[in-house]
């Protein structure tokens, strides 16, 4: 160990310890702290900005998506309304038609019924009159036929001849 190169000198050890300690504390307090803080802050702000941009992008996307959805919904509603209107219209028409038909049918039926009734009444009266006339005619004929005894006798004879006793 006689080579001065590899023999540490006490004086230099003391000086370097002192100098390094002073340097360390000065730099740590007045250089590294603000520098590291600034760098970190900047990194954070850059990251924040990036995040905000990303968020804005997402929001934009979401907004346009919701717009689209709203539009679609409106369109669908309109279609729905139109369809409903059409259905209502059709229904009304068919209902009206149906009502008209039934009314017509009912009128026709009642007319037919009335006609039938009138007819029946007329027929019945006709029958009655015919019957009365017939009876009157029969009365006159009978009065005429049976006016003499001979005529009464021949009638009885013919009637008797007709009776078949087997």
């Amino acid at each position: 160990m006689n080579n001065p190169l590899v023999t540490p000198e006490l004086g230099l050890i003391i000086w370097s310890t002192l100098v390094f300690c002073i340097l360390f504390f000065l730099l740590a307090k007045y250089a590294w702290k603000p520098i590291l803080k600034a760098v970190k802050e900047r990194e954070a702000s850059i990251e924040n900005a990036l995040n905000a941009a990303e968020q804005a992008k997402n929001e934009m996307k979401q907004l346009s998506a919701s717009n689209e959805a709203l539009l679609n919904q409106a369109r669908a509603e309109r279609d729905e309304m139109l369809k409903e209107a059409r259905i209502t219209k059709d229904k009304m028409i068919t209902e009206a038609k149906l009502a008209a038909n039934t009314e017509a049918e009912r009128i026709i039926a009642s007319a037919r019924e009335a006609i039938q009734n009138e007819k029946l009444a007329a027929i019945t009266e006709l029958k009655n009159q015919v019957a009365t006339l017939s009876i009157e005619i029969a009365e006159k004929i009978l009065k005429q036929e049976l006016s003499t005894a001979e005529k009464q006798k021949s009638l009885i004879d013919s009637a008797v001849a007709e009776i078949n006793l087997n």
Partner: protein
Amino acid sequence: MTGTLAAIGAGLAVIGAGLGIGKIGSSAMDAIARQPEATSKIQTAMIIAAALVEGVALFGVVVGLMGL
């Protein structure tokens, strides 16, 4: 005499370190060629390994200096 012996010893230490660092360097090159995306990690590991090998060689050199 001791000076000469020390010089020979330092030389021997340097041969060993040279071989060792050469091997480390060649392996690192291979590794980088195989995986270029891991270059920085390989470099760090290479420098650590080289520093350790070199440290051993430097012990030799320092012992040589002590004998000078």
